């Protein structure tokens, strides 16, 4: 990003080195052994984060943090529990080990508790960008100032965030496993208010160079202008063109259902549906931690290497993701998607990639006789867990498309829409991009044109 050529002092905070992490882990493993743990696992999370927040065309909140947590899981006599602390002195770490053991002792023996995994091999991923780690508060303030100046020139009001940071995760256990991953992140989100309308744009990446805040500001500003004079339409079933952020926040609610534990618990919408056609034939989805647009560690909460898993092939849910425990129960191999133990939910795919299509937003609009273009959706909650009916609102730019072009702004709608039906009704898709919004974690998803999308009630703006 061109705006990032700062002459100001770089951030002084630095992440611990790998040898420091190994030293800390070794010390805790030693305490575990002394305290009588059969096995010990140590997880270290370290975060250096900064976020500048603006509203009313000025920065109003501006924060920075540096934190490190050490989380210790012990196993004793077939029982396991976890204790976490951010106190790094020897006495506190010993106390955390004791606390973990005390919790473990308090429960009955766990049937089928697996021994911790031994040393693993990991595929390299490079997700650390020095220029992102070096961004200063002044850099962020200057970029924000430019966006706010644009808002003022256009008679609008800007609000949003610009955040940058670095983090790392290290995992080691008493069976010799050691895994470590570090990455940077950058995010810019902007709402341009053009009373009574507003619109929005957002980008998220491992590198601050991957997006230009001024382009995002310009896009939000232009859409806010178009969002004025919204008309109220009657509720009903519409063809919708979901921008990637809107598609992301909807389909994001589907993916915990691909956890083997969710199926074993019979709380997944895929119960009795695996291997049967469920979505349109144009829907294929993989979970791929190694995709170039993804972030995250190449290992799971127990240190198992993440595998690429084909979840949906041509509309058919084919595979689930497994932790070590759920894999053992199902007679499968773990896929490297387990959460840190102990937990109630088992696992989940966290690096989703849709196959997408070859259309574009412009082509989708051009091919639509009558429909609605959706910028963003908001406050999505599950109404029915098996049919996967979700409710929520459109927000920050809903537009009527008539005879192949955007003709006017529309008042926001509430929807009640089955995600299963939605993925049956996809007519066209753009290539998938790294999308970011507020309800789901980032995924690689396309814009989608979907028929029979069910809007049930309008709101007042």
């Amino acid at each position, binding site marked *: 990003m061109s705006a990032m050529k700062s002459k100001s002092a770089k951030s002084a905070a630095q992440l611990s080195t790998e040898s420091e992490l190994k030293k800390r882990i070794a010390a805790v493993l030693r305490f575990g052994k002394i305290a009588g743990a059969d096995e010990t696992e140590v997880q270290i999370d370290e975060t250096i984060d900064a976020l500048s927040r603006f509203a009313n065309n000025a920065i109003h909140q501006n924060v920075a*943090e*540096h934190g490190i947590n050490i989380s210790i899981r012990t196993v004793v006599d077939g029982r396991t529990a976890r204790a976490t602390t951010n106190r790094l002195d020897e006495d506190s770490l010993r106390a955390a080990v004791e606390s973990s053991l005390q919790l473990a002792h308090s429960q009955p023996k766990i049937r089928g508790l697996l021994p911790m995994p031994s040393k693993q091999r990991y595929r390299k991923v490079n997700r650390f960008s020095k220029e992102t780690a070096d961004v200063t508060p002044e850099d962020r303030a200057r970029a924000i100032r430019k966006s706010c100046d644009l808002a003022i020139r256009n008679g609008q009001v800007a609000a949003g965030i610009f955040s940058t940071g670095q983090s790392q995760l290290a995992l080691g256990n008493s069976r010799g496993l050691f895994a470590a991953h570090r990455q940077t992140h950058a995010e810019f*989100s902007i709402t341009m208010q053009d009373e009574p309308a507003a619109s929005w744009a957002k980008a998220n990446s491992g590198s601050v160079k991957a997006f230009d805040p001024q382009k995002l500001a310009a896009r939000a500003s232009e859409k806010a202008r178009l969002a004025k004079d919204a008309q109220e339409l009657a509720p009903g079933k519409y063809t919708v063109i979901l921008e990637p952020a809107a598609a992301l926040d909807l389909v994001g609610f589907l993916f915990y259902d691909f956890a083997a534990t969710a199926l074993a618990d019979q709380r997944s919408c895929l119960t009795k549906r695996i291997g049967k056609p469920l979505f349109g034939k144009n829907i294929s989805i993989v979970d791929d931690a190694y995709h170039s647009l993804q972030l995250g560690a190449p290992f799971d909460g127990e240190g198992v290497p993440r595998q690429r898993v084909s979840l949906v092939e041509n509309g058919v849910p084919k595979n689930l993701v497994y932790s070590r425990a759920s894999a053992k129960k199902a007679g499968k191999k773990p896929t490297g998607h387990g959460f840190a133990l102990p937990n109630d939910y088992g696992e989940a795919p966290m690096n989703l990639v849709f196959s997408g299509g070859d259309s574009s937003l412009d082509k989708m609009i051009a091919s639509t006789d009558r429909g609605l273009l959706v910028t963003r959706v908001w406050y999505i909650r599950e109404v029915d867990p098996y049919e996967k009916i979700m409710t929520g609102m459109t927000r920050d730019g809903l537009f009527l498309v008539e005879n192949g072009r955007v003709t006017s702004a529309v008042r926001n709608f509430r929807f009640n829409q089955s995600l299963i039906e939605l993925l049956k009704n996809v007519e066209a898709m753009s290539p998938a991009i790294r999308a970011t919004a507020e309800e789901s974690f980032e995924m690689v998803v396309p814009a989608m044109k979907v028929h029979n999308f069910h809007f049930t009630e309008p709101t007042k703006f």
Partner: protein
Amino acid sequence: MWDLTTNALDTAKLRGATYADARLMHIRQRDLTTKNGAAGTLSQSESIGIGIRALANGAWGFASTDKLTREGVAACAAQAVSIAKASALAKRGDVRMVPENSYIDSWQAPLQKDPFEIPLESQLDLLLKADAAMRAVKGITLTETGMQFRKIDCWYASSIGSRIHQRKVISGAGIGATSFKGTEIQKRSYPNSFGGQFALAGYELIESLELLKHAPRVAEESVALHSALQCPEKTGTLLLDGSQLGLQIHESVGHPIELDRVLGQEANFAGTSFLTLEKLNNLKYGSEIVNVVADARIAHGPGLGSFAYDDEGVPAQCTDIIKDGQFRGYLSNREMAQLIGLNRSSGTMRTESWNRLPIIRMTNISLKPGSGSPDELIASTDDGIWMETNRSWSIDDRRYQFQFSTEIGWEIKGGKKVRMLKNPSYSGITTEFWNSCDTICGEKYWTLWGTPNCGKGQPMQTMGTGHGASPSRFRNVKIGTAFSGQ
């Protein structure tokens, strides 16, 4: 601890801050869950650190650290001032705040039984027994229980001379039974969904919930829902139990009265509010029997929004929000109060932890009780639907249009509960809904519900809020829309 907060304030002043405050917090948490008869999550955590807020060159900066040495705290204070000066590069005016007195005080929330002193085995044993009681019911496919305890110590100091130590203990517990049959998943929870009931109380709260007594009923209702009729789609009379009404208050009163939303500070994320400034004292928010207060005083009850001082050093207060149906007040802090010409902050600045900036949050936003009992409420209803225990909630970003669904409903005919209904839902527009309220049950049936998971701010902060409510009735409400056309 006070040495470190003093060090923080001295350094901030030396670096050019015109105002600073520091919160040194020590937070301990215990989580216990069971699933299908076995222990699930068993974890304990502690976190300690300091967050320093500084005003320099007329703008705010905030930094936090877990390095609790003189050098670590001084570096953090210097960083907060440096960030404030960077903020000033994109300011439109200087931050100003209404005056507040300084306070030297120490306060501990009332507590009978420290949950961290109760043996873990007995806590887990209670959950496992409740789990077993639910699993004993045929047709149940998933059982879940949980307890959570937090102990928070906060040492607050500010450059106007305040030094306040507060200790709070929060307890919570709940159980849930799910049954999958055919093409339907149904769930019942007690005493509330999404974790149960939470309060500023000790283990006495857990004992008062009588989880074991309610476990069989919860499971039986979960299974029975499969045979119940679908909630009809219509406009009619709605009766809400206190827990669902608590969440209705949270979403359609609590959030829109946050002055930071009203003034656009949350426009990019949590949203704004329909309660624009000209509506203060000029809006008929609800019917004449609707009275809502924001009351953080412990006298209001052991709510998740109860404290002695907020995280800006302002004493807990009770503010009228809706009085006799009229809109009367906002939630504010010292800066927002200044912006709209109030004399004083209403004392609602709260932070999740030492590493988060305090922001305006709900305290206890409660609907004052009316009169009568739930039995009398039902007996006086000719045709209506009683809805109980939240299942989903959603509201637009200005807090106008909402839709809620609940775990269970009951058809009321001729003053009697006649049959169970599944998949109940209702929707509406905030002010139309509150103006349709014609009965609020009495104090005996009023509960201060705890909502432990309210998310707001960037970086995101989760906060507990309190909502006192008793069962109430609303007329001409849209019912059943969530499932229309499916």
